[in-house]
């Protein structure tokens, strides 16, 4: 069951990215182009997503001790602001502003097979592999829990 719902969640997520326009880098780059051809649409994506997720997560974790088909809610517990978080966010934001893709939209758009996407995705996967194999010297007890 959990596997079926994982697949279904991925599908719904992908449809959400397509419907919202988030899977179109032109729209993303215009959202980020505050001083140019600004298209504020994508603020509504984040707003809509949080409007469902915030009450949904709260209701789930308050009313249930565990998910329906698994043993525990795996919710990150860290609260510290480490250099790794900030450095990662700066690098990620820079790449997002260059290509107009973040990971979800890039994977969703992969089958459309635009040349830029076919180049972006393998390099993105290589970057993920690299980050997973980069030892974190500043936080020896961090087990690398990634959201």
């Amino acid at each position, binding site marked *: 069951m959990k596997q079926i719902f994982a697949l279904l969640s991925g599908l719904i997520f992908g449809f*959400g990215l397509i419907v919202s326009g988030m899977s179109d880098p032109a729209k993303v780059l215009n959202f980020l182009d505050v001083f140019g051809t600004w298209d504020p649409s994508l603020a509504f994506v984040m707003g*809509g997503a949080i409007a469902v997720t915030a009450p949904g997560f709260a209701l789930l974790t308050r009313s249930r001790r565990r998910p329906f088909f698994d043993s525990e809610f795996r919710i990150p517990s860290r609260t*510290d602001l480490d250099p790794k978080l900030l*450095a990662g966010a700066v690098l990620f934001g820079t790449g*997002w502003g260059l290509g107009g893709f973040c990971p979800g939209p890039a994977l969703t758009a992969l089958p459309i097979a635009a040349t*830029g996407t076919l180049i972006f995705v393998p390099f993105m996967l290589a970057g*993920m592999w690299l980050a997973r194999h980069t030892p974190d010297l500043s936080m020896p007890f961090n087990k690398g829990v*990634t*959201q």
Partner: protein
Amino acid sequence: METSFTPWLSLGGGLMIGASAVLLMATNGRIAGISGLTSSLFARSTDGEARGVSALFVVGLLMSAPIWLLVSGEWPQQWVPSSPVLMAVAGLLVGFGATYGNGCTSGHGVCGISRGSMRSIVATVTFMAAAIVTVFVTRHQIGS
């Protein structure tokens, strides 16, 4: 290039993304963070069951556009930058940065902010600022 303002479609798509995040948490107890789920496939520490769940979520993402094509008769509209060097650098930065910083637009921007996580709020403000500065520099400093 201009794109048209689509508040209702974007809101609707956002609600679907939220529904997906709640569904994954309700059934699997996992955060719908795309960089986390995808990169966990490359981590030795990921156990077989978690690997299967992550892989299936990614397969769902990959199936969405083809199903869209079957139902509507056309691919979703998009324009993708075509410079190979630019897209290679962008991909590397996105993949490495999102994984190194423990999350991307979905993990920090949607799920983390929804939990009220200070780490996610700081990360989201940081990557949004970096992205806005990058677009400003490439479009209005170098590009113009």
